[in-house]
């Protein structure tokens, strides 16, 4: 069970959140079919810290970038995504 510190709502139970995908698997809109296949289907799948896109589905519904350990579930960062003010 994880406690995820939403930057908008504060620490909330894992049950409120949904995992979407790892950050390196986000498809740019103008990608080519070859790149899309590579981005979608060739995954690092690390045992260790991983940057992931989550959503506070049953809370503020914001997209969040988590840095999370896939062995221990330790979470070292939860930040809004896209980063505010950068447009990225």
């Amino acid at each position, binding site marked *: *069970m*994880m406690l995820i510190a939403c930057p908008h709502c504060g620490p909330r139970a*894992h*049950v409120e959140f*949904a*995992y979407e*995908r*790892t950050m390196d698997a986000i498809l740019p809109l103008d990608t080519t079919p*070859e790149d899309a*296949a590579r981005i*979608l*289907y*060739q*995954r*690092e*799948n690390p*045992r260790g810290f*991983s940057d*992931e896109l989550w959503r506070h589905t049953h809370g503020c519904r914001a997209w969040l970038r988590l840095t999370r350990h*896939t*062995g*221990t*579930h330790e979470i070292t960062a939860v930040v809004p995504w896209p980063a505010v003010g950068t447009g990225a």
Partner: protein
Amino acid sequence: MKRFSALALLRAGLEGQKRWPRHWRDPDPRSHYDVIVIGGGGHGLATAYYLAKTHGVRSVAVLERAWIGGGNTGRNTTIVRSNYRQPQLQRLLEYSLKTWETLSDELNYNLMFSQRGAVFLGHSDADMGKLAERGDALRCAGIDAELMSREAVARLIPVLDMSPDARFPVFGGLIQKRGGTARHDAVAWGYARAADALGVDVIQNCEVTGFLMTGGRVTGVKTTRGEIGAGRVGICVAGSSGLVAGLAGLKLPIESHLLQAFVSEPIKPMLDTVVMSQSIHAYISQSDKGEMVVGGDPDHYPTYSQRGSPLRIEEVASQAIGLIPAMSRLRMLRCWAGTTDMSFDGSPIIGPTPVEGLYLNGGWCYGGFKATPGSGRLYAHLLATGNSHEIAVPFSLNRFERGATIDEAGAGPAPQAR
């Protein structure tokens, strides 16, 4: 190998069970094998057995990081069936089920394979429509399936909640009578013993830490017990496929998630079939020891922890009690989780990799146990001949880039959506 028989059991009983020999040797690795199989689970051991038995490849080693059958082979809910909807999966799992039916005799090992029937419950008209359609497709493929009325389900499974205000009203079901359960540990042990008798080296406590490469081709493996050369190397480590393939620089269409199950305290017989559902995600059977075995959905985020979240236990327990209210009186004995290779279409991968000499069997998601014998036969064919068996051809690694996915759940490329 000392054969098991009624006479051998009787004799051993009279001798106080003291003179059983080891079931398999504990060999040191040799410097070279024709084929190395990485992973001593059911699939890897089955592969080694069929390599030796069917293809006459006797110079085979199975390398296991810890002890055989200690991963997902020992963590599943032991259900065996072939009533899938996609024709490619039907062929694969029926091939496997047919092998299960004679496997105890073939291995001379009691796998406690019990064809007690596997029932999918339908909880609405829509469910029944889907079950009827699946049943028709199965029968067209020559696989047994029978649609059941509500009354027939009530007769077969009297413990179900059939009251008018049931949480999950039962409209009927679809049964595969040839489906059932098997003793999961025995599958690993039976294959290990039979493979060992054919000269296969089953090497435990031997972790693969890298690959030996010559000119872009895999020529062996580095292990915690030294370097071992090989003609062909087969990865067979579902749950850790990405980590082992990563040692060769490969990235796979796989995320590791976890799947939980739990058992109750043992009780007298109350359920003599496997109960599943078209709509909810609890599947229930009773082990021969009397424990109620219950499994559910994956936890829906990547993890290697083998440690599940209580959220899922609560959900699965509530669904199980909704179906069989009498289970509310039982105490949970233990719960556990296995790391599953979640592929991006929900189907397994059996085929060559882009690295010459290196092959992959993985991506079994939450359905690998039932496929163990079929998977072993198909992978042995690939490792012996270098070519995929026709049943395994659709399960190639490159099907994703070709768009030829086999998506049983119709959920698209997201493991957490299955």
